[in-house]
């Protein structure tokens, strides 16, 4: 493992397996009345959020707390873009306070890369602009692995606003590393230029892709993309790229439906699909997120590989 987690592209297949395995062991360990283990006692994790994301922040906070780390939340919406304290000064301040890991969410692509230049602490990218969200990809892979024996040849369709999606970028990188077959489905306006060089399939036709899909991942569509001319209307978008019950029926019976949340019900995903007990794994993505982030923090902050459940060292030496 690298010192930081800035991009899913920095992870080898071995790294990804290690995080997922560790997450699995930790899940079992905390699957009991007292959910805490003392592993990261005395370590401090800072959630540095320059953008509202209660869900991601809470997930990281719970993950750190279940490992007994101290958690501080630093919410600075606006940041230097709106002439507040600069990211560098914030970094220096946190460094001076002796934090061991910084989990950063930032509206500017690349902000975690910049931050990592300025601090000694481990930096975890919790979503940067329209770049990446690597822990989301890890939790997505973890969820897929609960349903499919192998990533090799697993057919994953990622549907929606790929152009602006950090979730899509991180998933593409991690899934490619693991040998999955990824297809991006979107109107051409919502695909990055040169997407043909990403080494993935590309389609503008959701109906053509779904029958050959094991995992469909629906991306959140920002409604303001309509006014920017990316598509003519939300109604048309939903009609062409929304996942409804009819489309779900066209998929293999073993297939699963994912969504990173928060959902626009009735736009990219119909309520009956989101709530489908047999096929939707959206709720387990959320719980898996905590375990995967526990696994990641544990490994980044120096934990040895966990080989058996219940055999964690009491504390990771600082």
């Amino acid at each position, binding site marked *: 493992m690298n010192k930081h987690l800035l991009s899913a592209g920095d992870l080898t297949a071995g790294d990804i397996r290690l995080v997922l395995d560790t997450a699995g062991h930790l899940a079992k360990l905390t699957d009991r009345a007292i959910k805490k283990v003392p592993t990261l006692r005395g370590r401090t994790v800072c959630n540095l959020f320059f953008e509202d994301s209660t869900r991601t922040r809470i997930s990281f906070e719970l993950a750190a707390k279940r490992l007994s780390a101290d958690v501080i939340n630093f919410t600075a919406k606006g*940041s*230097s*873009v709106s002439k507040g304290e*600069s*990211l*560098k000064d914030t970094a220096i301040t946190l460094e001076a306070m002796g934090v061991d890991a910084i989990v950063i969410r*930032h*509206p*500017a*692509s*690349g*902000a975690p*890369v*910049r931050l990592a230049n300025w601090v000694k602490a481990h930096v975890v990218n919790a979503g*940067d*602009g*329209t*770049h*990446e969200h690597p822990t989301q990809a890890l939790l997505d892979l973890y969820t897929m692995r609960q349903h499919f024996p192998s990533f090799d040849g697993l057919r994953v369709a990622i549907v929606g606003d790929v*152009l602006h999606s*950090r979730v899509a*970028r991180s998933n593409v990188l991690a899934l490619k590393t693991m040998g999955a077959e990824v297809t991006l489905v979107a109107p051409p306006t919502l695909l*990055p*230029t*040169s*997407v043909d*060089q*990403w080494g993935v399939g590309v389609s503008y036709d959701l109906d053509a892709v779904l029958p050959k899909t094991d995992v469909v991942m629906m991306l959140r569509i920002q409604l303001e993309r309509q006014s920017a001319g990316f598509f003519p209307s939300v109604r048309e978008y939903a009609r062409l790229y929304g996942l409804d019950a009819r489309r779900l029926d066209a998929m293999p019976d073993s297939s699963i439906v994912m969504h990173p949340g928060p959902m626009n019900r009735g736009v990219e995903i119909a309520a009956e699909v989101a709530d489908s007990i047999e096929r939707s794994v959206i709720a387990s993505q959320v719980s898996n997120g905590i375990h995967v982030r526990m696994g990641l923090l544990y490994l980044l902050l120096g934990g040895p590989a966990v080989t058996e459940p219940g055999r964690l060292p009491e504390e990771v030496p600082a």
Partner: protein
Amino acid sequence: MKPILLKGGRLVDPASGHDAVADVLVRDGIVAEAGAGLDATGAEVVDCDRLVVSPGFADLHVHLREPGREDAETIETGSMAAALGGYTAVCPMPNTDPPADNAGVVEMVAARGREIGLVELFPVGAVTVARAGEQLAELGAMARSAAAVDTFSDDGNPIREARLLRRALEYARAFDAVIADHCEDHSLTEGAQMHEGELSGLLGLRGWPAAAEDMVVARDLMLAELTGGRLHLCHLSTAGAVELVRAAKARGVRVTAEAAPHHFTLTDAALASYDPVFKVNPPLRGKADVEAVRQGLADGTIDAIATDHAPHTREDKEVELAAAPPGMLGLQTALGLAITELVEPGWLTLPQAIERLTAGPARCRRLPGHGGPVTAGAPANLTVFDPAATWTVRGAELASRSRNTPFEGRELHGRVVHTILRGRPTVRDGQLVEAGS
């Protein structure tokens, strides 16, 4: 002042086509004589063996930040960087605060330059009031001012309205002035952080497509053709733009063009670091564009190397990429990059590279006394450099008040040894000579 005899250097003077070992005698601010085996009793002899003597370099496009952002650069520090870079003439752009859209500001800039005396300043005036693209600035007042402005540009703001650019090109003919445009269609570049290509998609950064430059270049060329006005195109960065200019020149359009060293040296790959030191407008492009710019410089489609020297403070650049202003330093690295990146790989001969730094810029606008030829009676604006000297770029050692060089740590060949402005050394043995000393 004692006469100076530059002895035994290779005199490369593109304006006259001279390229051979020759001595140059400088007396009373002018070239007294140039030729082989000069002997001047009483002159200070400067040994130029193995060195190249050329006309002083001229830079069509610099930002000296004064007035308004003296924390990033001043006319003084910018002049120091220019002299050390071998320049005797530079053209400060009008995006100051207040903007150079009136005679007062251009006169102040030119006068301050004279007072410092390290490099001659030829200010560029704004085309429109406050560079807002709405109403023509008083071009005549600036042209007739003491600064004698003959080039107008709204700098980072392209002239959006075709009608207005047409009027500017027409009106400027009254003063035989040049309209210099920054070619960018803003509706395609809003929020852009880098060149649009494979990498921008991967990095999650909004891209600036080459088409946003090419289409404005095409429009500008058509308007130059329509009006017969003199058009200059700033910092060409795309293969498409180079090709458009090449074709326009072939059919006789009155157009000149410049390219910046970073655009013939660096590619968008540098942005993978998200380091704002590589953020510039127009952005660093792809490899094919870099090669097209080199080819354009080689065949003369691009007349001049212009640095677009753009100092920014550390606090402005040590931020997230999206929050950083575009621009990079250039004055002290231009010669080294031209030799290392253009001459040594064989794209240009040394005399061609010198042409793009001297006679080329002097072709784009009036720069009286600069660009050569180095003949008896001409003002003694000269640069002496060692084309083989190796040095490493260190931002902290540059004279600019800012440190934002994208070439930190890069080894370059070619270093300025002496710069002479109107007969007076501004740089001796690579060191600044303070005015009055």
